[in-house]
């Protein structure tokens, strides 16, 4: 085929295909919000804080600055201290695949912990000092804090949720009798 100037052109399907690579990355730098800053400060002091909605009484941990159910803003006045013991309401045994960046080599547990009154739910918590096969819903647990000089909250930002390993290593069994499922079945995460 030729174009209007008489030059040879390729026909459909014959065009040479040129591949190109384009590498890009985006960097974001987030400012830690006021409620999460207070949460970080409390963790350095081996304390868990939350905000409680004055209307529905739901407990938000980490504190988020508002209750999305009642659409009320929350601040320090709505702050409460949480217990650092509670009950395993649900858990998953993760068998690690050795993808790039995976540090775990043996099966491990990630558990949802319902804290004792005034409540609050921590998800994705490690359960320590017990074989994986013996972890169960209803098991009573207590927090294992990192020693004071080793606590680190640098990883905690607006988006880190319940990932607290730098300060709160996980939870271990207390040895108390298990709680019946009815005691927490409406709060399983």
């Amino acid at each position: 085929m030729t174009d209007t100037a008489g030059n040879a052109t390729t026909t459909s399907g014959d065009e040479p295909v040129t591949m190109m690579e384009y590498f890009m990355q985006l960097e974001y730098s987030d400012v830690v919000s006021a409620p999460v800053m207070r949460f970080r400060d409390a963790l350095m002091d081996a304390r868990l804080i939350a905000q409680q909605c004055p209307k529905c009484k739901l407990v938000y941990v980490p504190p988020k600055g508002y209750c999305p159910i009642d659409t009320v803003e929350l601040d320090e006045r709505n702050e409460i201290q949480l217990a650092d013991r509670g009950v395993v309401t649900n858990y998953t045994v993760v068998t690690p695949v050795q993808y790039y960046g995976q540090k775990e080599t043996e099966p491990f547990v990630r558990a949802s912990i319902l804290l004792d009154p005034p409540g609050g739910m921590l998800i994705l918590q490690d359960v320590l000092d017990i074989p994986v096969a013996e972890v169960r819903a209803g098991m009573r647990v207590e927090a294992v804090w990192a020693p004071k000089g080793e606590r680190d909250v640098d990883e905690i930002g607006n988006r880190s949720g319940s990932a607290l390993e730098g300060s709160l290593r996980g939870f271990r069994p207390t040895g108390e009798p298990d709680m019946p499922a009815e005691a927490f079945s409406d709060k399983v995460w």
Partner: protein
Amino acid sequence: MAALKDVAIIGYAQARNERQAQATEVQFLFPVINEALEMSKIPRREIGFTCAGSCDYLSGQTFAFVMNLEAVGAWPPISESHVEMDGAWALYEAWVRLQHEDIDTALVFGSGKSSPGNPAEIYPLQMDPYTLTPLGFDPVSSAAIQARALLDAGKVTERQMAEIAARSRRDAMKNPYAQVTGEFDVDELLAQPYVTAPLRKHDLPPISDGACAVVLATGDKAREVCERPAWIRGIDHRIEAHQPGMRDLTTSRSTRLAGEAAGVGSAPIEVAELSATFTHQEPILREALGLGDQVAINPSGGALSANPVMAVGLARIAEAAKQIVEGGRRRTLGHATSGMCLQQNLVCVLEGEQ
């Protein structure tokens, strides 16, 4: 398109724009939505439809647009939608939704937290991935090409551009939400170096974190709750070619067509709030919309005094509505834009009753 069913703006609110908000997007959106709803006097649970405009790329958070719903109060579940566009397009969707008979109110919002990222890195990703993205075709570079074309065509001078910046910043002194405000001498502005020639810093919008919310209601409902509703008399949006080399950057055909369809020219416009995010875009938009010297342009200070991406266009419509609801004006206009060099444009004509 001419309005089929009477829909009015009866409530609006904005966040105070900041270069870097400590609050998260949901946190600063929260009081804005509360304030707009409060002004509208419509109980939250009675809102028939909610539509949001935002972009997860800005703050770099996956599903940030879902989290934003926490500021609305979405439990029990509500009827809602989202556009990856400025909130002005969310308003358009809500206006279309209100043409149906089953609901009479809607909540619209736009929000953006631009401070965590680098616009010069993020924006090229929306361009043609073969020929433009690898060039790093960012908003300032593309706007500079447009400004150069405009200067070369003799349609604007650098002095006129500086005068637009000075006027916007001066007007913004009265706007509590504005970010860049103050008295500036045009000669001093022109003595500043170029950022990307022919643009100086004053020709560029600031980087802003901000939000805007608007409440809409139909006919009798609007009259029932609002003393002087701002009626949407025409609203239309048009889009041009993605590749900026395929169009004349010194004019805005899509704005002209949207303006004609929205009925801009059918009666005098008193105030126009234009999303001219670069100084030289204001004369392009004025020409496209046929706005003469008698029209007050951007009394809020416009996008040059605060540019909350994804909210700035909706904020223009809110400001245009405010001119009617609070300012007693008869006929105003809000404009929003999307894409590089005014690629896509939305025009909304508002009227108050006599």
